[in-house]
């Protein structure tokens, strides 16, 4: 037995836990990402076993979908019959409903509780003024020094806690056989999946907190197993008496598949009708007045529809980080945040510099910032110190009373008041791009080729040839008050930051004359001289689009007048559509954005189910109800498939993360999600626990997924990707990218192609590069794999309902 062997076992065991992202950059990732190499059904079964989690939608969600006609009866019956289930759908629905969740005592209650106490104390990111002593030495050593004072452990004199984590692990595990290691370690990692997921995150991101206060899974396991053996808690998992009817799980999977298939059929029908009748005659208008690029985000679908209907505007969909793999240095707090998909390494650093002749204004802006920071510090000192805490409350209490009234009764008014008076830094600053991680002999500035490449790849991926006089790159951000999950509503492609800085950066690069000249000379991308690119932001809570136009020439400014008034009208109809009200919809949206008691300021990406990679003409005349990610793409400009490959490697994987996150947070909100917001308790400035404490919550809260405790909003369906490109091209890409093929073969997502070479026929990817016509009802018997066990009819009829 060796230390290395234990480390290997930890490595293996750690696959079962996902990554808990901090709420200040809430990346919606797949909680079961460690399992993506295995099939979906196997993965969910393991998760169910280990985490006691629900893995399929609850019966009530199926019932609602069934009653709303979302699940096609024919599809469902076919699947049921294929699996030897001959009763009516209603019978099976009631059978699923007969299963209730039960509570049982946590066998390792004391152990879990003590661990949660120490983990929260150690991993705090500055919420406590008095930090855990000895934190700099790492979790194990810091804990070891304090353990002897912990009356909850009552460590008697003379008992020696091992000096290092490896010693502790060796000592405890020596009582077990080596083949039990992984089982033991898995069991203890899965006991507090939220906290261990956050250790995972810290180790991988190597954040400033991790660098200063290191913690590892080995530390965690050493502390935990030592306490477990000290308290005589269970070290080996208890064998479970499985009293759950396995047929229920099978039924749930069948219903899910039927639902997904029904949704795909609906999408195919819609797009099929469209592509036959309108292409290519009803293409884009020849000379749009402006073009706007939005994120692929499902919320963009709604605003694009409304913008397009207000004038001669053309819209595009592109990943919201606008192709710039960057970190952004925030002027307000001086901290740098990732602003591109988490799967990409950032190669650039973007920061703000004053616009020409605006140094003075920037200095004033920064002074104001300093003052705000001082006020914050001042208030914290006054509240924390003795005896000012008491004097402070008496002197300021009355003013808190006034704020209580204002914030509760007039949130909309204060939103408009603040919006009118604030001058965002975008009016005095421009973004500046530099290289990140440079060797010291290299210069920070980036070469022209890099700039050209960034701009070119945007046009390549979107399949974009003709340019309007005004082009807006519209990033998106969400604005809500008192919302710990605020960043979950920002741009997923920007690692949960707002996308406007990337949009402004791309606009600036595309406006550089030398960049344009190279594009024209080298790549025949001819941008008219009059064309100007401008950054903007789509506020997804209010559907307002703010244009950062402080630097545009006057000639363009005149054109912007009309565009702005059209965007205002688009805001009006978009909010009406989204909120389902006809009067004062903007005011209501503004109120939602600033109401501190609002737990559902907007719906984020809820209801996402599809990802369409195709020219806008394919979808333009349809209301897709904000359920689809839309990426612009034109296969005819991409004969090599390079652009498509990029889209499939990048955006498609990100949308899969988002979709899987929504799926799991919905099917078991307590385990994979955040639980209800109304009893959340923020811990350590980065996360929430429920009520008095316990495990760190790892996913989206109930209020982002359900209309009420009883009514679902998000429909947990796996993502269906539809690409308009020749089947052969997609096959080529899949054969080059084993990881993409694995995702599909393991059914984490679905893929369909609309093949322009075969009369726009839509086909579904099955497995191992086999494609079948999309509208054919499934006949594939191994669809449900080994999860399915033969169902005995006798057993079914015995179920009392």
């Amino acid at each position: 037995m060796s230390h290395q062997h234990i480390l290997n076992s930890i490595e293996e065991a750690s696959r079962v836990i996902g990554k808990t992202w901090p709420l200040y950059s809430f990346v919606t990732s797949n909680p079961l990402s460690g399992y993506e190499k295995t099939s979906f059904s196997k993965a969910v079964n393991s998760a169910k076993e280990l985490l006691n989690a629900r893995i399929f939608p609850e019966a009530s969600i199926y019932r609602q979908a069934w009653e709303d006609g979302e699940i096609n009866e024919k599809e469902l019956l076919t699947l049921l019959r294929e699996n030897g289930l001959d009763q009516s759908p209603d019978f099976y629905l009631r059978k699923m409903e007969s299963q209730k969740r039960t509570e049982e005592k946590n066998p390792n209650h004391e152990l879990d509780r003590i661990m949660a106490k120490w983990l929260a104390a150690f991993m705090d990111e500055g919420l406590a003024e008095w930090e855990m002593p000895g934190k700099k030495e790492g979790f194990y050593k810091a804990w070891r020094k304090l353990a002897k004072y912990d009356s909850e452990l009552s460590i008697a004199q003379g008992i020696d806690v091992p000096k290092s984590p490896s010693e502790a692990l060796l000592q405890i595990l020596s009582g077990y056989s080596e083949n039990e290691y992984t089982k033991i370690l898995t069991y203890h990692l899965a006991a507090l999946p939220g906290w261990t997921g956050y250790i995972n995150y810290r180790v991988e991101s190597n954040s400033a907190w991790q660098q200063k206060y290191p913690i590892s899974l080995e530390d965690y396991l050493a502390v935990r197993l030592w306490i477990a053996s000290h308290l005589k808690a269970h070290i080996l998992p208890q064998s479970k008496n499985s009293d759950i009817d396995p047929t229920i799980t099978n039924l749930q999977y069948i219903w899910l598949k039927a639902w997904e298939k029904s949704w795909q059929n609906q999408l195919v029908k819609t797009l099929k009708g469209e592509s036959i009748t309108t292409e290519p005659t009803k293409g884009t208008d020849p000379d749009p007045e402006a073009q706007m690029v939005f994120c692929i985000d499902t919320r963009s679908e709604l605003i694009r529809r409304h913008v397009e209907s207000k004038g001669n505007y053309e819209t595009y969909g592109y990943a919201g980080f606008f192709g710039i793999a960057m970190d952004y240095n925030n002027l307000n707090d001086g901290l740098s945040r990732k602003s591109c998909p988490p799967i990409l390494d950032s190669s650039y650093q973007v920061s703000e510099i004053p616009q020409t002749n605006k140094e003075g204004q920037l200095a004033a802006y920064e002074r104001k910032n300093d003052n705000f920071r001082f006020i914050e510090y001042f208030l914290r000192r006054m509240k924390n110190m003795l005896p000012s805490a008491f004097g402070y409350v008496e002197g300021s209490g009355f003013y808190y009373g006034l704020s209580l009234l204002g914030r509760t009764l007039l949130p909309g008014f204060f939103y408009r008041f603040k919006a009118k008076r604030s001058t965002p830094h975008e009016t005095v600053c421009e973004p500046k791009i530099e290289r990140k991680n440079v060797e010291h002999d290299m210069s920070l500035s980036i070469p022209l080729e890099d700039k050209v490449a960034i701009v070119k790849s945007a046009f390549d991926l979107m399949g974009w040839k003709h340019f309007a006089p005004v082009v807006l790159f519209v990033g998106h951000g969400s604005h809500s008050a008192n919302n710990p999950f605020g960043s979950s509503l920002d741009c997923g492609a920007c690692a949960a930051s707002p996308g406007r800085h990337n949009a402004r950066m791309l606009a600036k690069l595309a406006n550089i004359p030398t960049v344009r000249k190279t594009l024209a000379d080298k790549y025949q991308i001819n941008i008219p001289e009059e064309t100007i690119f401008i950054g903007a932001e789509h506020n997804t809570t209010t559907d307002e689009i703010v244009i950062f136009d402080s630097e545009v020439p006057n000639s363009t400014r005149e054109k912007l007048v009309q565009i702005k008034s059209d965007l205002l009208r688009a805001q009006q109809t978009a909010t009406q559509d989204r909120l389902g009200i006809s009067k004062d919809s903007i005011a209501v949206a503004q109120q939602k954005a600033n109401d501190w008691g609002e737990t559902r300021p907007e719906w984020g990406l809820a209801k996402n189910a599809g990802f369409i990679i195709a020219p806008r003409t394919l979808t333009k005349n349809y209301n897709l109800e904000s359920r689809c990610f839309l990426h612009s793409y034109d296969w005819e400009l991409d004969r090599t498939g390079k652009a498509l490959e990029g889209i499939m490697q990048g955006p498609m994987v990100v949308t899969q993360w988002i979709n899987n996150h929504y799926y799991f947070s919905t099917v078991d909100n307590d385990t994979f999600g955040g639980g209800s917001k109304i009893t959340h308790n923020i811990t350590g400035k980065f996360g929430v626990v429920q009520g008095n404490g316990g495990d760190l919550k790892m996913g989206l809260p109930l209020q982002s997924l359900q209309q009420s405790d009883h009514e679902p909003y998000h429909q947990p369906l796996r993502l269906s990707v539809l690409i308009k490109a020749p089947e052969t091209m997609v096959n080529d890409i899949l054969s080059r990218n084993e990881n993409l093929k694995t995702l599909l073969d393991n059914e984490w997502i679905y893929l369909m192609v609309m093949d322009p070479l075969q009369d726009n026929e839509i086909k579904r990817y099955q497995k191992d590069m086999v494609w079948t016509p999309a509208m054919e009802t499934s006949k594939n018997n191994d669809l449900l794999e080994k999860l399915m066990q033969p169902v005995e009819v006798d057993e079914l009829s015995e179920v009392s309902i």
Partner: protein
Amino acid sequence: MNSETKIQENASQNSKNTGSGPSSSASVKMIAPILWLLFTVNLAYLLYFFPNVPEWHLGNIVRVNGFTLLIWTTVTFFSALVSSYAGNYLHGFRFHARFMKLCLGFTLSVMTFVVSENIFLLLFSWMVMGFIMSRLIGIDSEWAEAREASKYTQRYFLSGTLFLSLGVLILAFTSGTYSVDVMITLIQDLPQTTVLIAALCIIVAAIIQSAIYPFHRWLLSAMTAPTPASALMHAGFVNGAGILLALFASIFFASNTLNFLLIIGGLTAIVAQFTKLLQVNVKQRLACSTIAQMGFMIMQCGLGFFNAAVVHLILHGFYKAYLFLASGEEIALSKPQEPLKIRIKPLQALVVFFFGVLGAIFFAFLTGKGTELDSGIFLTLIVAITVGQATYNIVKERSLSISQKIILPMALFIAGIGIYALLYNGVTVLMKDMPMIAVPLPLSTVQIVFGVVFLIGFFIMKLGGYKSLPWLYVRLLNLSQPNKKSILMYKSKSL
């Protein structure tokens, strides 16, 4: 090992009862307007008659005076506000309607409590108050830990009621009256030991309610309540002790128990303030702050200033309700920072001292506290130190200009002390019919010793020496852990 609970069944039945039927949605819609109406009427009445609110009796059952109206206005303000907030916040919560009803019930119970002259009405409403609060803590009855927390807090509140009943009944039987007001006038004639026992019982009831050490743990276990319920708890429930002590003020003079209040309140204030510094959860941190503030309030009572305690409980209510309702704002990316050590220059020290003294004079001038050598001096001293601390932080801030450094402290202490004095004097006028609510005590050794202890606490905190005491950290950490059963006690079994 696997003892399954049957409560699940009950819970799902409950959810059916309080589902979104027509009657429950009516209560969701109607209760907030009713509470706002109550608040407006109370406030209008109060302002109309101010400063001479007529005293009004109904037999010896209820009594309405300036103090009653003051508390009525305050509690209706908090519950109206919380119910408006909850209208959105709890939207879709399966127990939303139940929450609204409990909110209304709680308001009525507090209103009944302050209006009660009859002791049975008084005791009954005290009990109902606690009962409703524990129901709010466990409102999500489908959540096992919340049920545990509810049971746990209920035990505290019942014990509180028991002690209060004991104390009041002893007084009633020895004085032969069921009227609180009459009873108090007879205190002087009762045997000393009886009064002492009664006073101690009432004090125990009060410090249970205010989560004063060693009864603090219920408040740290109450986060299973939805956020608006916590706001109501910290603004309108824990401070019930201040009201109770003010109503019975004479007894503590008669029984000589003021020093006891001073010590237990003051120690709690210091310990809880230190404990607050190490909290890593927002709501637990707020709870520690509340405990400290309640300690301070009890301390004010111990110094003979029951009116100051009442002002404090109202202002603290505003402060804490705000912080709870905004408790979702604490998520932020940050980086580890070493605490700045900035030495203060002699000139700056002089400015700090000057403003501290100026603040104290201003405070003494406006409130009359500290003008003579009595217990009021302590309260003035705290004001002086607070002003000094504020000035200290301002003068050593680099981003401020010289003129800002002069004007800012002035503006702050005029705004802060001015508004405080205004409220203090207003409340004192409203409480003028109540006996013994503002009686400065002659300086005593106990007070002075305690004042020194308080100053030592201030200096330890200021110099930061406590940070190098690991045992103290663990001690306070464990002291502030919630009830064990209310964390991770249960697991759900999957399907």
